[in-house]
Protein backbone atom coordinates (compact mmCIF):
# COMPACT_ATOMS: atom_id res chain seq x y z
CA UNK A 1 0.00 0.00 0.00
CA UNK A 2 1.60 3.19 -1.08
CA UNK A 3 1.01 6.56 0.40
CA UNK A 4 0.00 8.75 -2.46
CA UNK A 5 -0.42 12.21 -1.05
CA UNK A 6 2.63 14.38 -1.20
CA UNK A 7 3.95 17.83 -1.95
CA UNK A 8 4.65 17.90 -5.69
CA UNK A 9 7.07 15.06 -5.49
CA UNK A 10 7.12 12.90 -8.56
CA UNK A 11 9.41 10.33 -7.03
CA UNK A 12 10.38 9.31 -3.57
CA UNK A 13 13.94 10.43 -4.04
CA UNK A 14 13.42 13.98 -2.87
CA UNK A 15 13.17 15.15 0.66
CA UNK A 16 11.66 18.19 2.27
CA UNK A 17 14.42 20.63 3.13
CA UNK A 18 13.34 22.43 6.26
CA UNK A 19 16.11 24.95 5.93
CA UNK A 20 15.41 26.14 2.42
CA UNK A 21 11.75 25.10 2.54
CA UNK A 22 12.08 23.30 -0.72
CA UNK A 23 12.05 19.78 -1.90
CA UNK A 24 15.63 18.73 -2.05
CA UNK A 25 16.96 16.60 -4.89
CA UNK A 26 19.82 15.33 -2.81
CA UNK A 27 19.04 12.17 -0.96
CA UNK A 28 20.11 11.82 2.64
CA UNK A 29 23.54 10.36 3.10
CA UNK A 30 23.22 6.64 3.50
CA UNK A 31 24.57 4.78 6.48
CA UNK A 32 28.33 4.43 6.21
CA UNK A 33 28.55 7.30 3.73
CA UNK A 34 30.66 10.36 4.14
CA UNK A 35 27.84 12.85 4.47
CA UNK A 36 29.72 15.01 6.92
CA UNK A 37 33.08 14.45 5.35
CA UNK A 38 34.56 12.26 7.99
CA UNK A 39 35.40 8.59 7.86
CA UNK A 40 33.25 6.37 9.98
CA UNK A 41 30.21 8.61 9.74
CA UNK A 42 27.62 7.95 10.98
CA UNK A 43 29.19 6.96 14.25
CA UNK A 44 27.85 8.57 17.37
CA UNK A 45 26.76 12.09 16.55
CA UNK A 46 25.16 14.16 19.26
CA UNK A 47 22.91 17.14 18.72
CA UNK A 48 23.13 19.55 21.65
CA UNK A 49 20.31 21.97 22.41
CA UNK A 50 20.20 24.60 25.12
CA UNK A 51 17.74 27.45 25.61
CA UNK A 52 18.43 28.24 29.23
CA UNK A 53 20.35 31.39 28.33
CA UNK A 54 19.80 32.43 24.74
CA UNK A 55 19.27 29.66 22.20
CA UNK A 56 21.98 27.34 20.93
CA UNK A 57 22.11 24.17 18.86
CA UNK A 58 25.26 22.20 18.05
CA UNK A 59 26.30 18.85 16.68
CA UNK A 60 29.41 16.95 17.72
CA UNK A 61 30.96 13.61 17.02
CA UNK A 62 31.57 11.39 20.00
CA UNK A 63 35.25 12.23 19.99
CA UNK A 64 34.31 15.85 20.50
CA UNK A 65 34.75 17.14 16.97
CA UNK A 66 32.33 20.03 16.53
CA UNK A 67 30.31 19.54 13.34
CA UNK A 68 27.97 22.47 13.86
CA UNK A 69 27.65 25.24 16.40
CA UNK A 70 24.66 27.50 15.90
CA UNK A 71 23.40 30.18 18.20
CA UNK A 72 21.04 33.08 18.22
CA UNK A 73 22.22 36.60 18.95
CA UNK A 74 18.80 37.27 20.41
CA UNK A 75 18.63 36.49 24.13
CA UNK A 76 14.86 36.18 23.84
CA UNK A 77 12.84 34.80 20.98
CA UNK A 78 13.73 31.16 21.64
CA UNK A 79 10.67 29.79 19.87
CA UNK A 80 11.29 31.95 16.80
CA UNK A 81 14.87 30.79 16.18
CA UNK A 82 15.15 27.23 17.43
CA UNK A 83 13.79 25.56 14.31
CA UNK A 84 16.23 27.26 11.97
CA UNK A 85 19.17 26.64 14.32
CA UNK A 86 18.30 22.96 14.54
CA UNK A 87 17.78 22.70 10.82
CA UNK A 88 21.19 24.27 10.13
CA UNK A 89 22.93 21.95 12.60
CA UNK A 90 21.31 19.00 10.87
CA UNK A 91 22.78 20.02 7.54
CA UNK A 92 26.19 19.28 9.00
CA UNK A 93 25.04 16.20 10.86
CA UNK A 94 21.96 14.77 9.15
CA UNK A 95 21.82 11.53 11.10
CA UNK A 96 22.38 12.27 14.78
CA UNK A 97 22.29 9.36 17.18
CA UNK A 98 21.50 11.25 20.39
CA UNK A 99 20.01 14.55 21.51
CA UNK A 100 21.68 16.23 24.47
CA UNK A 101 19.50 18.79 26.14
CA UNK A 102 20.36 21.51 28.63
CA UNK A 103 17.82 21.14 31.44
CA UNK A 104 18.45 24.56 33.00
CA UNK A 105 18.31 26.29 35.34
CA UNK A 106 17.12 29.27 33.36
CA UNK A 107 14.10 31.49 32.78
CA UNK A 108 11.27 28.97 32.49
CA UNK A 109 9.60 30.13 29.32
CA UNK A 110 12.75 30.04 27.22
CA UNK A 111 14.09 26.91 28.87
CA UNK A 112 10.95 24.97 27.98
CA UNK A 113 11.26 25.81 24.29
CA UNK A 114 14.55 23.96 23.95
CA UNK A 115 13.37 21.01 25.99
CA UNK A 116 10.11 20.74 24.02
CA UNK A 117 12.03 20.92 20.75
CA UNK A 118 14.60 18.37 21.85
CA UNK A 119 12.02 15.91 23.12
CA UNK A 120 9.95 16.14 19.95
CA UNK A 121 13.01 15.86 17.75
CA UNK A 122 14.21 12.79 19.64
CA UNK A 123 10.74 11.30 19.36
CA UNK A 124 10.62 12.00 15.63
CA UNK A 125 14.02 10.43 15.03
CA UNK A 126 13.57 7.64 17.57
CA UNK A 127 16.89 8.50 19.20
CA UNK A 128 17.60 8.84 22.91
CA UNK A 129 17.65 12.06 24.90
CA UNK A 130 20.57 12.81 27.17
CA UNK A 131 19.70 15.45 29.79
CA UNK A 132 22.54 17.67 30.99
CA UNK A 133 22.43 20.42 33.64
CA UNK A 134 23.12 23.60 31.68
CA UNK A 135 25.66 24.70 34.29
CA UNK A 136 27.64 21.50 33.62
CA UNK A 137 28.05 22.58 30.01
CA UNK A 138 29.29 26.00 31.09
CA UNK A 139 31.65 24.45 33.64
CA UNK A 140 33.06 22.02 31.07
CA UNK A 141 33.80 24.94 28.76
CA UNK A 142 35.68 26.76 31.50
CA UNK A 143 37.69 23.68 32.45
CA UNK A 144 38.62 22.89 28.84
CA UNK A 145 39.61 26.47 28.14
CA UNK A 146 41.90 26.51 31.17
CA UNK A 147 43.33 23.11 30.27
CA UNK A 148 44.22 24.42 26.81
CA UNK A 149 46.13 27.35 28.27
CA UNK A 150 47.66 25.25 31.04
CA UNK A 151 45.89 27.31 33.66
CA UNK A 152 44.94 25.76 37.00
CA UNK A 153 41.18 26.12 37.47
CA UNK A 154 40.28 27.03 41.03
CA UNK A 155 37.06 25.83 42.62
CA UNK A 156 34.41 27.93 40.91
CA UNK A 157 30.72 28.68 40.77
CA UNK A 158 28.75 29.00 37.55
CA UNK A 159 26.28 31.81 38.13
CA UNK A 160 23.25 32.62 35.97
CA UNK A 161 20.36 35.02 36.29
CA UNK A 162 17.29 33.48 37.90
CA UNK A 163 15.07 36.60 37.79
CA UNK A 164 13.17 37.76 40.90
CA UNK A 165 16.39 39.26 42.25
CA UNK A 166 17.96 35.83 42.56
CA UNK A 167 20.87 34.00 40.97
CA UNK A 168 21.15 30.31 40.22
CA UNK A 169 24.58 28.84 40.95
CA UNK A 170 26.33 25.49 40.85
CA UNK A 171 29.79 24.87 42.29
CA UNK A 172 32.51 22.81 40.58
CA UNK A 173 35.92 21.64 41.61
CA UNK A 174 38.06 20.17 38.86
CA UNK A 175 37.42 17.52 36.25
CA UNK A 176 37.14 13.77 36.84
CA UNK A 177 38.53 10.75 35.01
CA UNK A 178 35.50 10.70 32.75
CA UNK A 179 36.39 14.20 31.58
CA UNK A 180 33.36 15.67 33.33
CA UNK A 181 33.24 18.64 35.71
CA UNK A 182 33.09 17.62 39.35
CA UNK A 183 29.92 19.24 40.65
CA UNK A 184 30.11 19.71 44.39
CA UNK A 185 26.91 21.73 44.70
CA UNK A 186 23.89 21.20 42.47
CA UNK A 187 22.12 24.24 41.04
CA UNK A 188 20.78 26.36 43.88
CA UNK A 189 19.03 29.72 44.15
CA UNK A 190 20.49 32.62 46.11
CA UNK A 191 19.28 36.17 46.69
CA UNK A 192 21.55 38.35 44.58
CA UNK A 193 23.06 40.24 47.47
CA UNK A 194 23.85 37.06 49.42
CA UNK A 195 25.65 35.19 46.68
CA UNK A 196 29.17 36.52 47.18
CA UNK A 197 29.10 35.69 50.89
CA UNK A 198 27.92 32.17 50.11
CA UNK A 199 30.64 31.66 47.51
CA UNK A 200 33.31 33.02 49.88
CA UNK A 201 32.20 30.46 52.42
CA UNK A 202 32.54 27.71 49.82
CA UNK A 203 35.87 29.09 48.63
CA UNK A 204 34.56 29.28 45.06
CA UNK A 205 35.50 31.82 42.44
CA UNK A 206 32.47 33.38 40.81
CA UNK A 207 31.92 32.90 37.08
CA UNK A 208 28.95 34.82 35.67
CA UNK A 209 27.82 33.08 32.52
CA UNK A 210 26.24 35.00 29.70
CA UNK A 211 25.63 32.09 27.39
CA UNK A 212 25.65 28.33 27.15
CA UNK A 213 27.54 26.49 24.43
CA UNK A 214 25.37 23.76 22.98
CA UNK A 215 28.58 22.04 21.84
CA UNK A 216 29.65 21.79 25.49
CA UNK A 217 26.22 20.40 26.42
CA UNK A 218 26.71 17.79 23.69
CA UNK A 219 30.28 17.07 24.79
CA UNK A 220 29.23 16.60 28.40
CA UNK A 221 26.58 14.20 27.12
CA UNK A 222 29.14 12.32 25.00
CA UNK A 223 31.37 11.86 28.01
CA UNK A 224 28.47 10.84 30.21
CA UNK A 225 27.45 8.26 27.59
CA UNK A 226 30.98 6.91 27.45
CA UNK A 227 31.06 6.65 31.22
CA UNK A 228 27.56 5.21 31.44
CA UNK A 229 26.50 8.03 33.72
CA UNK A 230 23.37 10.19 33.96
CA UNK A 231 24.07 13.85 34.66
CA UNK A 232 20.50 15.01 35.18
CA UNK A 233 16.93 13.76 35.34
CA UNK A 234 14.46 14.25 32.53
CA UNK A 235 12.59 17.11 34.21
CA UNK A 236 13.59 20.77 33.81
CA UNK A 237 15.64 22.29 36.61
CA UNK A 238 13.07 24.93 37.50
CA UNK A 239 14.37 25.32 41.09
CA UNK A 240 11.18 27.21 41.90
CA UNK A 241 7.51 26.36 42.21
CA UNK A 242 5.12 28.05 39.81
CA UNK A 243 4.47 31.51 41.18
CA UNK A 244 0.84 31.38 42.07
CA UNK A 245 -1.40 32.57 44.82
CA UNK A 246 -4.30 30.36 45.76
CA UNK A 247 -7.73 31.82 45.11
CA UNK A 248 -8.80 34.21 47.81
CA UNK A 249 -12.26 35.44 48.69
CA UNK A 250 -13.67 37.72 45.99
CA UNK A 251 -13.10 41.43 46.51
CA UNK A 252 -16.10 43.47 47.58
CA UNK A 253 -17.50 45.72 44.90
CA UNK A 254 -19.81 47.90 46.96
Amino acid at each position, binding site marked *: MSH*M*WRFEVPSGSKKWDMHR*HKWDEVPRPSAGGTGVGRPGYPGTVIIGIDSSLGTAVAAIARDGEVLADEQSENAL*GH*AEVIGDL*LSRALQAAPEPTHVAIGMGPGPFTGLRVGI*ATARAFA*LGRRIPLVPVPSHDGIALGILLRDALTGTETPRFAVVTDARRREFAYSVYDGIDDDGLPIRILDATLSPRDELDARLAELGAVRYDATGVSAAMIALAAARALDAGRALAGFEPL*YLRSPDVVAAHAPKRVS
Partner: protein
Amino acid sequence: MVLMDAPLVLGIETSCDETGIGIVRGRQLLSNTIASSMDEHARYGGVVPEVAARAHLEALQPSIDAALAEAGVTLDEIDAVAVTSGPGLAGALMVGVGAAKGLAVALDKPLYAVNHLVGHIAADILDAEAGELEYPTVALLVSGGHTSLLLVRDLTSDVELLGETMDDAAGEAFDKVARLLKLPYPGGPEIDRAAASGDPTAIRFPRGLSRASDMASHRYDFSFSGLKTAVARWVEQHEAAGQPVPVADVAASFREAVVDVLVTKALDACERYGVPRLLLGGGVIANKRLRDVALERAAAAGVAVRIPPLRLCTDNGAMIAALAAELIASGRRPSTLAFGADSTLPVTEIQVAEDPDAAAPGPLPARVGS
Protein backbone atom coordinates in the same frame (compact mmCIF):
# COMPACT_ATOMS: atom_id res chain seq x y z
CA MET B 1 -9.19 0.19 -1.35
CA VAL B 2 -8.22 2.60 1.35
CA LEU B 3 -8.56 6.29 0.68
CA MET B 4 -5.04 7.55 0.95
CA ASP B 5 -4.99 10.71 -1.06
CA ALA B 6 -5.62 13.23 1.69
CA PRO B 7 -2.73 14.51 3.80
CA LEU B 8 -2.07 12.88 7.14
CA VAL B 9 -1.58 15.80 9.54
CA LEU B 10 -0.57 15.84 13.19
CA GLY B 11 -1.77 18.95 15.03
CA ILE B 12 -0.40 20.35 18.27
CA GLU B 13 -2.47 22.73 20.41
CA THR B 14 -1.16 24.27 23.66
CA SER B 15 -2.75 27.72 23.79
CA CYS B 16 -4.39 27.38 27.20
CA ASP B 17 -4.72 24.50 29.66
CA GLU B 18 -5.36 21.59 27.30
CA THR B 19 -2.51 19.78 25.60
CA GLY B 20 -4.17 18.65 22.40
CA ILE B 21 -2.70 16.28 19.86
CA GLY B 22 -4.89 15.53 16.88
CA ILE B 23 -4.33 13.39 13.84
CA VAL B 24 -6.47 13.74 10.73
CA ARG B 25 -6.34 12.44 7.22
CA GLY B 26 -7.87 15.32 5.32
CA ARG B 27 -11.29 15.68 6.91
CA GLN B 28 -11.21 12.32 8.59
CA LEU B 29 -10.57 12.38 12.33
CA LEU B 30 -8.14 9.66 13.41
CA SER B 31 -7.29 10.82 16.90
CA ASN B 32 -8.25 13.63 19.23
CA THR B 33 -6.04 13.21 22.29
CA ILE B 34 -6.38 15.77 25.06
CA ALA B 35 -4.47 16.05 28.32
CA SER B 36 -5.90 18.73 30.57
CA SER B 37 -4.21 20.48 33.47
CA MET B 38 -7.56 21.82 34.66
CA ASP B 39 -7.38 19.99 37.99
CA GLU B 40 -4.10 21.69 38.79
CA HIS B 41 -5.70 25.09 38.24
CA ALA B 42 -8.80 24.36 40.30
CA ARG B 43 -7.22 25.40 43.61
CA TYR B 44 -6.27 28.75 42.10
CA GLY B 45 -9.74 29.46 40.70
CA GLY B 46 -8.46 30.01 37.16
CA VAL B 47 -5.79 29.03 34.66
CA VAL B 48 -2.31 29.83 35.96
CA PRO B 49 -0.03 30.36 32.92
CA GLU B 50 3.12 28.87 34.49
CA VAL B 51 1.24 25.83 35.75
CA ALA B 52 -0.27 25.35 32.29
CA ALA B 53 3.08 25.68 30.51
CA ARG B 54 4.75 23.16 32.80
CA ALA B 55 1.89 20.74 32.30
CA HIS B 56 2.13 21.07 28.51
CA LEU B 57 5.80 20.17 28.54
CA GLU B 58 5.08 17.07 30.61
CA ALA B 59 2.06 16.00 28.61
CA LEU B 60 3.32 16.51 25.07
CA GLN B 61 5.32 13.39 24.44
CA PRO B 62 2.88 10.94 26.05
CA SER B 63 0.03 12.68 24.22
CA ILE B 64 1.77 12.33 20.87
CA ASP B 65 2.41 8.65 21.59
CA ALA B 66 -1.20 8.12 22.59
CA ALA B 67 -2.52 9.93 19.51
CA LEU B 68 -0.35 7.88 17.15
CA ALA B 69 -1.45 4.68 18.82
CA GLU B 70 -5.11 5.63 18.59
CA ALA B 71 -4.80 6.69 14.96
CA GLY B 72 -2.86 3.54 14.14
CA VAL B 73 -0.15 5.45 12.30
CA THR B 74 3.55 6.03 12.83
CA LEU B 75 5.38 9.33 12.71
CA ASP B 76 7.04 8.28 9.45
CA GLU B 77 3.65 8.33 7.77
CA ILE B 78 2.83 11.90 8.83
CA ASP B 79 2.70 14.27 5.83
CA ALA B 80 2.69 17.55 7.74
CA VAL B 81 2.82 18.95 11.26
CA ALA B 82 0.47 21.73 12.38
CA VAL B 83 0.66 23.91 15.45
CA THR B 84 -1.23 26.74 17.11
CA SER B 85 0.83 29.92 16.88
CA GLY B 86 -1.77 32.03 18.70
CA PRO B 87 -3.78 33.57 20.18
CA GLY B 88 -3.38 32.21 23.68
CA LEU B 89 -1.02 32.20 26.66
CA ALA B 90 2.46 33.00 25.32
CA GLY B 91 4.43 30.63 27.54
CA ALA B 92 2.00 27.80 26.88
CA LEU B 93 1.97 28.40 23.12
CA MET B 94 5.77 28.34 23.01
CA VAL B 95 5.89 24.77 24.29
CA GLY B 96 3.78 23.64 21.36
CA VAL B 97 5.71 25.74 18.87
CA GLY B 98 9.03 24.28 20.07
CA ALA B 99 7.69 20.74 19.92
CA ALA B 100 6.17 21.24 16.47
CA LYS B 101 9.42 22.57 15.08
CA GLY B 102 11.42 19.73 16.64
CA LEU B 103 9.04 17.19 15.16
CA ALA B 104 8.82 18.77 11.71
CA VAL B 105 12.60 19.09 11.45
CA ALA B 106 13.10 15.53 12.69
CA LEU B 107 10.66 14.16 10.14
CA ASP B 108 11.65 16.51 7.29
CA LYS B 109 8.01 17.41 6.90
CA PRO B 110 6.24 20.70 6.18
CA LEU B 111 5.03 22.70 9.15
CA TYR B 112 1.83 24.77 9.23
CA ALA B 113 1.51 27.42 11.96
CA VAL B 114 -2.15 28.31 12.32
CA ASN B 115 -4.66 30.44 14.17
CA HIS B 116 -6.36 28.89 17.17
CA LEU B 117 -9.68 30.68 16.67
CA VAL B 118 -9.95 29.62 13.06
CA GLY B 119 -9.09 26.13 14.30
CA HIS B 120 -12.30 26.20 16.34
CA ILE B 121 -14.22 26.73 13.10
CA ALA B 122 -12.26 23.97 11.36
CA ALA B 123 -13.42 21.56 14.07
CA ASP B 124 -16.76 21.53 12.30
CA ILE B 125 -15.45 19.92 9.12
CA LEU B 126 -14.32 16.88 11.12
CA ASP B 127 -17.91 16.10 12.00
CA ALA B 128 -18.61 13.25 9.61
CA GLU B 129 -22.33 13.38 10.42
CA ALA B 130 -22.76 17.00 9.42
CA GLY B 131 -23.02 18.08 5.83
CA GLU B 132 -20.58 20.34 4.06
CA LEU B 133 -19.86 23.62 5.85
CA GLU B 134 -21.54 26.35 3.80
CA TYR B 135 -20.20 29.85 3.37
CA PRO B 136 -20.56 32.49 4.48
CA THR B 137 -21.37 31.61 8.07
CA VAL B 138 -21.36 33.56 11.29
CA ALA B 139 -19.32 31.82 13.99
CA LEU B 140 -19.70 32.39 17.72
CA LEU B 141 -16.70 31.09 19.67
CA VAL B 142 -17.11 31.04 23.43
CA SER B 143 -14.64 29.62 25.91
CA GLY B 144 -12.71 30.42 29.06
CA GLY B 145 -10.18 32.25 26.93
CA HIS B 146 -12.18 33.91 24.20
CA THR B 147 -15.56 35.25 23.19
CA SER B 148 -15.54 36.15 19.51
CA LEU B 149 -18.06 36.68 16.78
CA LEU B 150 -16.70 35.99 13.32
CA LEU B 151 -17.90 36.18 9.76
CA VAL B 152 -16.41 33.27 7.86
CA ARG B 153 -16.47 33.62 4.09
CA ASP B 154 -13.86 30.93 3.59
CA LEU B 155 -12.13 28.86 6.23
CA THR B 156 -8.69 29.09 4.68
CA SER B 157 -8.70 32.58 3.25
CA ASP B 158 -11.36 34.92 4.57
CA VAL B 159 -12.32 35.17 8.23
CA GLU B 160 -13.43 38.54 9.56
CA LEU B 161 -13.65 39.53 13.22
CA LEU B 162 -17.02 41.16 13.85
CA GLY B 163 -16.53 41.55 17.56
CA GLU B 164 -14.97 40.11 20.69
CA THR B 165 -15.00 40.56 24.42
CA MET B 166 -13.62 43.83 25.71
CA ASP B 167 -12.75 42.32 29.09
CA ASP B 168 -13.49 38.83 30.44
CA ALA B 169 -14.23 35.86 28.25
CA ALA B 170 -17.64 34.34 28.88
CA GLY B 171 -16.10 31.25 30.45
CA GLU B 172 -14.08 33.47 32.78
CA ALA B 173 -17.29 35.22 33.85
CA PHE B 174 -18.75 31.83 34.75
CA ASP B 175 -15.66 31.05 36.84
CA LYS B 176 -15.74 34.39 38.64
CA VAL B 177 -19.44 34.30 39.41
CA ALA B 178 -19.09 30.71 40.60
CA ARG B 179 -16.51 31.97 43.10
CA LEU B 180 -18.88 34.73 44.22
CA LEU B 181 -21.47 32.04 44.89
CA LYS B 182 -18.83 29.91 46.64
CA LEU B 183 -19.03 27.24 43.94
CA PRO B 184 -15.90 25.35 42.76
CA TYR B 185 -13.83 25.79 39.59
CA PRO B 186 -14.48 25.41 36.71
CA GLY B 187 -17.57 27.54 37.08
CA GLY B 188 -19.57 26.60 33.98
CA PRO B 189 -20.87 23.20 35.04
CA GLU B 190 -21.31 24.39 38.65
CA ILE B 191 -23.41 27.39 37.64
CA ASP B 192 -25.40 25.08 35.40
CA ARG B 193 -26.08 22.66 38.22
CA ALA B 194 -27.08 25.47 40.58
CA ALA B 195 -29.23 27.11 37.90
CA ALA B 196 -31.22 23.96 37.21
CA SER B 197 -33.73 24.72 39.97
CA GLY B 198 -33.55 28.50 39.61
CA ASP B 199 -35.70 31.06 37.86
CA PRO B 200 -33.82 32.74 34.99
CA THR B 201 -36.18 35.73 35.17
CA ALA B 202 -35.85 36.21 38.93
CA ILE B 203 -33.25 38.96 38.65
CA ARG B 204 -32.71 41.19 35.63
CA PHE B 205 -28.93 41.40 35.33
CA PRO B 206 -27.46 43.81 32.74
CA ARG B 207 -26.67 42.76 29.16
CA GLY B 208 -23.23 44.22 28.42
CA LEU B 209 -22.78 46.51 25.41
CA SER B 210 -26.41 46.08 24.42
CA ARG B 211 -27.75 49.61 24.76
CA ALA B 212 -28.72 51.58 21.70
CA SER B 213 -25.72 53.81 22.33
CA ASP B 214 -23.39 50.78 22.13
CA MET B 215 -24.63 49.78 18.69
CA ALA B 216 -22.52 52.26 16.78
CA SER B 217 -19.08 51.08 17.86
CA HIS B 218 -19.62 47.85 19.86
CA ARG B 219 -22.55 46.20 18.16
CA TYR B 220 -20.81 42.80 18.09
CA ASP B 221 -18.48 43.23 21.04
CA PHE B 222 -19.07 41.68 24.43
CA SER B 223 -18.41 42.77 27.99
CA PHE B 224 -18.92 40.56 31.01
CA SER B 225 -17.08 42.40 33.77
CA GLY B 226 -20.04 44.71 34.41
CA LEU B 227 -22.31 41.71 34.68
CA LYS B 228 -19.97 40.06 37.16
CA THR B 229 -19.90 43.25 39.22
CA ALA B 230 -23.70 43.49 39.13
CA VAL B 231 -23.98 39.93 40.44
CA ALA B 232 -21.45 40.68 43.18
CA ARG B 233 -23.32 43.81 44.20
CA TRP B 234 -26.64 42.01 44.26
CA VAL B 235 -25.22 39.25 46.44
CA GLU B 236 -23.55 41.70 48.81
CA GLN B 237 -26.71 43.76 49.23
CA HIS B 238 -28.64 40.64 50.02
CA GLU B 239 -26.08 39.53 52.56
CA ALA B 240 -25.93 43.01 54.11
CA ALA B 241 -29.68 42.90 54.56
CA GLY B 242 -29.28 39.60 56.36
CA GLN B 243 -31.20 37.69 53.70
CA PRO B 244 -30.12 34.29 52.43
CA VAL B 245 -28.74 34.40 48.87
CA PRO B 246 -30.97 32.42 46.49
CA VAL B 247 -28.04 30.77 44.73
CA ALA B 248 -30.22 28.93 42.21
CA ASP B 249 -31.99 32.11 41.09
CA VAL B 250 -28.77 34.12 40.94
CA ALA B 251 -27.04 31.39 38.91
CA ALA B 252 -29.98 31.00 36.54
CA SER B 253 -30.40 34.76 36.08
CA PHE B 254 -26.68 35.28 35.52
CA ARG B 255 -26.51 32.44 33.00
CA GLU B 256 -29.54 33.85 31.22
CA ALA B 257 -27.86 37.24 30.92
CA VAL B 258 -24.75 35.66 29.36
CA VAL B 259 -26.69 33.40 27.03
CA ASP B 260 -29.06 36.18 26.01
CA VAL B 261 -26.33 38.59 25.02
CA LEU B 262 -24.35 35.90 23.15
CA VAL B 263 -27.31 34.64 21.16
CA THR B 264 -28.80 38.09 20.54
CA LYS B 265 -25.58 39.46 19.09
CA ALA B 266 -24.88 36.33 17.03
CA LEU B 267 -28.36 36.37 15.46
CA ASP B 268 -28.14 40.12 14.95
CA ALA B 269 -24.97 39.50 12.93
CA CYS B 270 -26.72 36.80 10.90
CA GLU B 271 -29.52 39.19 10.08
CA ARG B 272 -27.37 42.21 9.31
CA TYR B 273 -25.05 40.27 7.02
CA GLY B 274 -27.85 38.27 5.51
CA VAL B 275 -26.26 35.00 6.58
CA PRO B 276 -28.74 32.31 7.60
CA ARG B 277 -26.03 30.13 9.16
CA LEU B 278 -24.50 30.15 12.65
CA LEU B 279 -21.64 27.96 13.80
CA LEU B 280 -21.02 27.56 17.53
CA GLY B 281 -17.62 26.62 18.95
CA GLY B 282 -15.49 26.78 22.09
CA GLY B 283 -15.76 24.97 25.42
CA VAL B 284 -18.69 27.06 26.74
CA ILE B 285 -20.85 25.50 24.02
CA ALA B 286 -20.98 22.59 26.45
CA ASN B 287 -23.50 24.75 28.29
CA LYS B 288 -26.83 23.18 27.41
CA ARG B 289 -28.81 26.34 28.11
CA LEU B 290 -26.69 28.21 25.59
CA ARG B 291 -27.25 25.53 22.96
CA ASP B 292 -30.97 25.33 23.66
CA VAL B 293 -31.53 29.08 23.51
CA ALA B 294 -29.39 29.39 20.39
CA LEU B 295 -31.25 26.59 18.62
CA GLU B 296 -34.67 27.88 19.61
CA ARG B 297 -34.10 31.50 18.70
CA ALA B 298 -32.17 30.65 15.54
CA ALA B 299 -35.01 28.44 14.38
CA ALA B 300 -37.41 31.32 14.89
CA ALA B 301 -35.10 33.57 12.90
CA GLY B 302 -34.64 31.03 10.10
CA VAL B 303 -30.98 30.52 10.89
CA ALA B 304 -29.43 27.06 10.67
CA VAL B 305 -27.14 26.25 13.62
CA ARG B 306 -24.14 23.94 13.45
CA ILE B 307 -22.56 22.62 16.60
CA PRO B 308 -19.53 20.33 16.31
CA PRO B 309 -19.33 17.39 18.73
CA LEU B 310 -18.41 18.70 22.15
CA ARG B 311 -14.99 17.01 22.22
CA LEU B 312 -14.14 19.06 19.16
CA CYS B 313 -15.53 22.28 20.68
CA THR B 314 -13.11 22.42 23.58
CA ASP B 315 -9.50 23.20 22.71
CA ASN B 316 -7.94 20.31 20.81
CA GLY B 317 -5.23 19.41 18.35
CA ALA B 318 -7.56 17.79 15.83
CA MET B 319 -9.03 21.14 14.84
CA ILE B 320 -5.52 22.49 14.32
CA ALA B 321 -4.64 19.51 12.14
CA ALA B 322 -7.94 19.88 10.27
CA LEU B 323 -7.27 23.53 9.52
CA ALA B 324 -3.80 22.68 8.21
CA ALA B 325 -5.25 19.90 6.06
CA GLU B 326 -7.66 22.43 4.54
CA LEU B 327 -4.81 24.89 3.96
CA ILE B 328 -2.87 22.13 2.20
CA ALA B 329 -5.89 21.18 0.10
CA SER B 330 -6.31 24.80 -0.94
CA GLY B 331 -2.69 24.96 -2.11
CA ARG B 332 -1.21 27.01 0.69
CA ARG B 333 2.53 26.73 1.20
CA PRO B 334 3.94 25.61 4.55
CA SER B 335 5.16 28.08 7.15
CA THR B 336 8.81 28.95 7.51
CA LEU B 337 10.53 27.88 10.71
CA ALA B 338 10.85 31.51 11.79
CA PHE B 339 7.61 32.11 13.65
CA GLY B 340 6.94 32.28 17.34
CA ALA B 341 4.01 32.35 19.69
CA ASP B 342 1.69 35.31 19.13
CA SER B 343 -0.60 35.69 22.12
CA THR B 344 -2.75 38.28 20.33
CA LEU B 345 -2.72 36.83 16.81
CA PRO B 346 -5.61 38.44 14.91
CA VAL B 347 -8.20 36.07 13.48
CA THR B 348 -7.54 37.39 9.99
CA GLU B 349 -4.15 35.65 10.11
CA ILE B 350 -5.36 32.15 9.44
CA GLN B 351 -1.87 30.87 8.78
CA VAL B 352 1.34 32.39 10.11
CA ALA B 353 4.63 32.81 8.23
CA GLU B 354 3.60 31.20 4.96
CA ASP B 355 6.83 30.70 3.07
CA PRO B 356 6.73 32.44 -0.32
CA ASP B 357 9.71 30.40 -1.51
CA ALA B 358 8.39 27.01 -0.54
CA ALA B 359 6.98 24.56 -2.98
CA ALA B 360 3.22 24.63 -3.01
CA PRO B 361 1.42 21.42 -2.25
CA GLY B 362 0.73 19.98 -5.64
CA PRO B 363 -2.60 18.86 -6.97
CA LEU B 364 -3.52 15.60 -5.36
CA PRO B 365 -2.16 12.83 -7.53
CA ALA B 366 -4.46 10.21 -8.90
CA ARG B 367 -5.24 7.71 -6.25
CA VAL B 368 -3.61 4.37 -6.64
CA GLY B 369 -5.28 1.32 -5.29
CA SER B 370 -3.46 -1.23 -3.27
